[in-house]
């Protein structure tokens, strides 16, 4: 069940140029939110901007988390891109933030006891919503592809490095870190060398051009590919039908990113 409630800003730190890490104390939502779900955040007290902003959650800590300081906190990693996120950079400790969540359908895990190779592909800030999967996947071996325009856009690298048994691949478009090119190019060049399992589970989140490219290259059977989509949203809870995406199902040609998504099967979406 989603709820509308106030959270309290604990911290709001700039971690890199344009990237900020916001910690909000909001036990009701932190306790319930599942991997891949999102929240709608009211970033201003007036109508500028008027609409809430959707954010996936980077980390959430339940109310019984062993570290007392973290209990009931939600972490949002965001990039300053426009008016809404500009306002967010001004959030100070103690500020009340009205939130709606948890919302949407998150990632689903591979059925037990199958053991596919698990591949995460994140572009820019999209990697953040994939990181929330890690807590659920346990000690599964992961292949993690992180892409960005420059080295400043590579996020969560250290987080993934801490995970035992995961292999990390980095691509930047300008070549300032790792492979020079897109993260999809890098994935293609490495694909045959990944893992041993016959089946693959791919989880991806990133700019629409990246996902389009992924849809073009991932066609083979035995691959399950779940993607988390971004969309301009009116409400975030299914009321306005503003955030739809085109699907291959003629019975439901437009589905709501906020309600049926934000996670979809790659093959169900029409990538024009």
């Amino acid at each position: 069940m989603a709820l509308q409630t106030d959270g309290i800003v604990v911290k709001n730190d700039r971690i890199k140029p344009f990237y900020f890490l916001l910690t909000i104390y909001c036990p009701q939502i932190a306790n319930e939110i599942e991997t891949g779900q999102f929240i709608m955040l009211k970033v201003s007290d007036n109508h500028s901007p008027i609409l809430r902003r959707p954010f996936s959650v980077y980390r959430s800590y339940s109310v019984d988390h062993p570290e007392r300081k973290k209990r009931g906190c939600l972490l949002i990693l965001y990039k300053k891109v426009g008016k809404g996120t500009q306002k967010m950079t001004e959030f100070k400790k103690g500020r009340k933030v009205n939130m709606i969540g948890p919302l949407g359908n998150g990632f689903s895990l591979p059925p037990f006891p199958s053991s596919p190779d698990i591949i995460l592909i994140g572009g820019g800030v999209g990697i953040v919503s994939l990181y929330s999967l890690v807590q659920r996947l346990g000690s599964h071996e992961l292949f993690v592809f992180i892409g960005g325009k420059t080295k400043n856009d590579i996020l969560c690298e250290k987080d993934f490095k801490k995970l035992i048994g995961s292999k990390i691949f980095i691509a930047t478009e300008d070549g300032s870190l790792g492979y020079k090119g897109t993260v999809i190019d890098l994935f293609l060049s490495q694909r045959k060398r990944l893992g041993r399992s016959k089946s693959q589970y791919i989880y991806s989140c990133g700019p629409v051009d990246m996902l389009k490219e992924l849809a073009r290259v991932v066609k083979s059977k035995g691959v399950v590919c779940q993607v988390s989509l971004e969309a301009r949203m009116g409400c975030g809870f299914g009321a306005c039908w503003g955030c739809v995406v085109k699907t291959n199902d003629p019975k439901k040609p437009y589905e709501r990113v906020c309600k049926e998504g934000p996670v979809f099967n790659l093959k169900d979406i029409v990538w024009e």
Partner: protein
Amino acid sequence: VNPIRNPDLSVKIGNIKLKNPVMVASGTFGFGEEYEDFIDLNQLGAIIPKGISLKPMIGNPPPRIFETEGGIINSIGLQNPGFQDFIENKLPFYKNIKTHLIINFFGNTRREYIQLAKRFDEVPGISGLEMNISCPNVKRGGMVFGSDPKMAYQLVREVRKATKLTLIIKLSPNVTDIAWVAKSVEEGGADAVSLINTFRAMAVNIHSKKPELGNIVGGLSGPAIKPIALRMVWEVSRRVKIPVIGMGGIMKAEDAIEFILVGASAVQIGSANLVNPRTAIEVIDGIEKYLIKNRINHVQELSGLFKP
């Protein structure tokens, strides 16, 4: 002087007796169930779900929504499951909800409007109909009927014969003289008018040089349009005798009170539902507090208290 403890908030629109003058506007409240997590739906004056057509409609291509200064442009395109699916899958939800259900409907042709009115007339559990002759986002029907007073009059006259339910006509602001259209639908037999629907609007991305909406043009709503909506509600209220339901950018109780002062009998909350799902409830509370503070016994006394 004794303070007024429980002012009477009830109003009558046609044959519908509302417990308070606050409804939620079609297209901004889904089918009602989307709001169940956030508010007690029983407290609302009435619920008006998303507009229904005879056959399902798939809606417009995305992007469908764009934010502007104090406003939202949408081009949803009246996506809806159609009459049959609505009756089977959406209507049962309202069985246990103790507020009025007003059905917003529209047709692509005159015949479809009449047919739909007839069919809804036979469905139990519906308190009234709101006929949309004002959607800016569909090619045929919709606004075509609402922009011509003569066509509006004829359509209302025929739909009037097709249903005994309270008939509200939702008007478009994209006309030269909205009061003239209102007067025409009153003469055609409407029980009430609701206004305004959205203003035709657009936005351009200067980097891609493309429209921000898949449909190029959409409808503008939100606080940006409130002053114009208010002016139109005032003009219409002076010209018609039937109740006027005001809407357009109501974000808080004070906005709603302005609409009532200039002559609205009731109001609808639209875009604000998307931003704050609790808006309608907060507006009801705010109106009640205002009445208490101003020692007014009945919300109906407020209507038209405006002193130009």
